[in-house]
């Protein structure tokens, strides 16, 4: 992983650089704001990341860090208004999706990029059978007849290991348990064999034993199909198990990007360090948890300089004045901290 994209946080409105590269999916200097009655919330402030075939990029962040909004922008399901993209590109096979026609975009959804959501019960349509919702895609996008599309839908349910797939085809979502619904949604999103799968908190609503089943299933399907996967989560445990690379988000920016092993061994940003220190661990009976003091910033009023500076134990005067760009640290990682070198080189 020596090819992390390094972005200077450019001024809004300059547009993405637009240079073609061999990447599968790239987000380039994306900026999104929400215009509400109370003011403008700057939700995404220059996010750049990419995912290649067969790899898993984990996007880690707390609520309000902009991780889900980035995914919604990629899929073109951002609510406008209030959300507006003010800058940047989302390139799929080098082509900017934000400027293409809605017809072109529609063709990419499902076949190029698919998404699974946290809450399967509200993502599935309650008035159609699960089977119908999967088979629909084969009829509309592949022009198959009823019988054939049904056969393919049952195959999909089988692939995600729903027992008695044939009988389950004509069940409604409410007849499924939480784990099964999540499986059905995975079947639906993979029906058209997408190249990239975006999984937005796929296991947050599930119990641990079911979570383990679903994460296994996702990893297995990804290997078989050599999909690129963007896993959006706040759970540092899940990330450690499946991710190849991690991008940590805070206040609409990527503050650190690194290989999964490097990130846990030696975080290069004080926010990442604070997160790792503040989780209780199953294999340790700790005394007192170290915490990150304070609260995440109000996105309508992000502090000047580094957005993390009011909560940062290492903050210096420079942090209150100058916004640290996401710069390469060493060979294979990047951090948006003025003191990243010191953090990485400390013993």
């Amino acid at each position, binding site marked *: 992983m020596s090819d992390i994209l390094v972005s200077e946080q450019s001024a809004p409105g300059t547009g993405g650089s637009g240079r073609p590269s061999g990447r599968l999916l790239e987000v380039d200097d994306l900026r999104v704001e929400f215009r509400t009655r109370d003011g403008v919330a700057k939700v995404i402030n220059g996010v750049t990341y990419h995912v290649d075939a067969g790899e898993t990029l984990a996007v880690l962040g707390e609520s309000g860090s902009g991780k889900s909004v980035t995914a919604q922008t990629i899929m073109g399901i951002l609510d406008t208004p209030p959300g507006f993209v003010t800058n940047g590109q989302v390139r799929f096979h080098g082509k900017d999706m934000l400027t293409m026609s809605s017809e072109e975009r529609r063709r990419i959804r499902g076949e190029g990029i698919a998404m699974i959501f946290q809450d399967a019960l509200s993502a599935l349509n309650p008035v159609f059978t699960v089977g119908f919702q999967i088979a629909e895609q084969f009829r509309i996008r592949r022009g198959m007849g009823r019988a054939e599309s049904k056969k393919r839908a049952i195959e999909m349910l089988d692939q995600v290991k729903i*027992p008695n797939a044939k009988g389950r085809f004509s069940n409604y979502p409410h007849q499924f348990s939480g784990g099964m619904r999540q499986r059905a949604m995975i079947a639906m999103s993979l029906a058209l064999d997408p190249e990239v799968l975006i999984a937005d908190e796929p296991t947050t609503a599930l*119990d*641990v034993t079911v979570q383990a*089943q679903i994460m296994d299933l996702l990893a297995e399907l990804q290997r078989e199909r050599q999909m690129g996967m963007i896993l959006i989560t706040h759970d540092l445990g899940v990330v*450690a198990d499946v991710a190849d690379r991690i991008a940590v988000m805070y206040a609409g920016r990527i503050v650190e990007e690194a290989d999964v092993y490097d990130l846990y061994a030696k975080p290069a940003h004080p926010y990442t360090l604070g997160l790792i220190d*503040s989780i*209780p661990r*199953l294999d*340790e009976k700790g005394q007192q948890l170290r915490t990150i*003091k304070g609260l995440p910033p109000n996105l309508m009023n992000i502090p000047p300089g580094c957005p993390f500076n009011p909560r940062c134990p290492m903050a210096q005067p420079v942090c209150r004045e100058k916004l640290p760009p996401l710069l390469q640290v060493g060979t294979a990682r990047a951090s948006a901290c003025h003191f990243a070198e010191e953090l990485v080189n400390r013993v």
Partner: protein
Amino acid sequence: MSENIIEVRDLVKHYPVTQGVVFKKTVGQVKAVDGVSFGLRAGETLGVVGESGCGKSTLARVLMNLERPTAGSVVYKGQDISKLSGGALRRLRRQIQLVMQDPYTSLNPRMTVGDLLGEPFEIHPEVAPKGSRRAKVRELLDLVGLNPEHINRYPHQFSGGQRQRIGIARALALRPEVIVCDEPVSALDVSIQAQVMNLLEKLQGEFGLSYVFIAHDLSVVRHLSDRVAVMYLGKIVEIGTEDEIYERPTHPYTQALLSAVPVPDPTQRHNKTIIRLTGDVPSPISPPSGCRFRTRCWKAQDVCAEQVPLLEIRPSSDHPSACHFAEKREIVASHEAA
């Protein structure tokens, strides 16, 4: 058993399942809690873990006497809570308080923080005379790490973590001896979760509180608990000290549960074996006969379908375990002491 502050004996809570609107008839029972016994010692934290639907929240409600148990007793210092009503119940409620999971719905949006925290004193005027209430509320806010100046704010002006602090302050207002915490940190972000957990620990030290700490997150429970009870489908399957449960679990369900918890350390990725449970939790309306876990258990034999395994100390288990084939198995790779 005299050192136990709360003694729960064979607690049962069934909810009827009804059919029909005009001619209602009961067609079954949801066996939410089905024969649970344990003791809570003074000053300790008892963690209760289990997956959704295992009855841990119902247990909290019955402990508080928000629901009357179908059978069994909850004895607090010699008094059976489940039989009390009226003034006697009200007096006893001072001693046992509840912190709820969702800080967004458990606070009345139309009341200011001052009103919310002052309300307990209206019900129990003997705790604080009328004139001193405002000062008491300020003191409480300060205690849980909130700015006392914010006494006139409404809940929506606070973040999730701050609201949970308000919930904790409200539970503390009457200086109870026991606080039942029902998933108090599961709705919070990681960095805020740690702050609230530290606060709970600090308050326990300061006031000598006993906690019943209900959660689904096994790491959180380990961090806070002295003893841990593991629930499955309305029954406790294993109970013991934090070390006994996490280092030497003997019930297959506990072992599976522990093995499934993701460890935030990528270098452990290939070192651990996850016990894969198949299927889902059976319906609590018609739980399996014998051992309730047998339908998902890899050790199940004929005897498991016939005989209900009792929660007792067994030859191969140094703490009570409800499995016919209880056996030690190391799950959590002990971390080298830092």
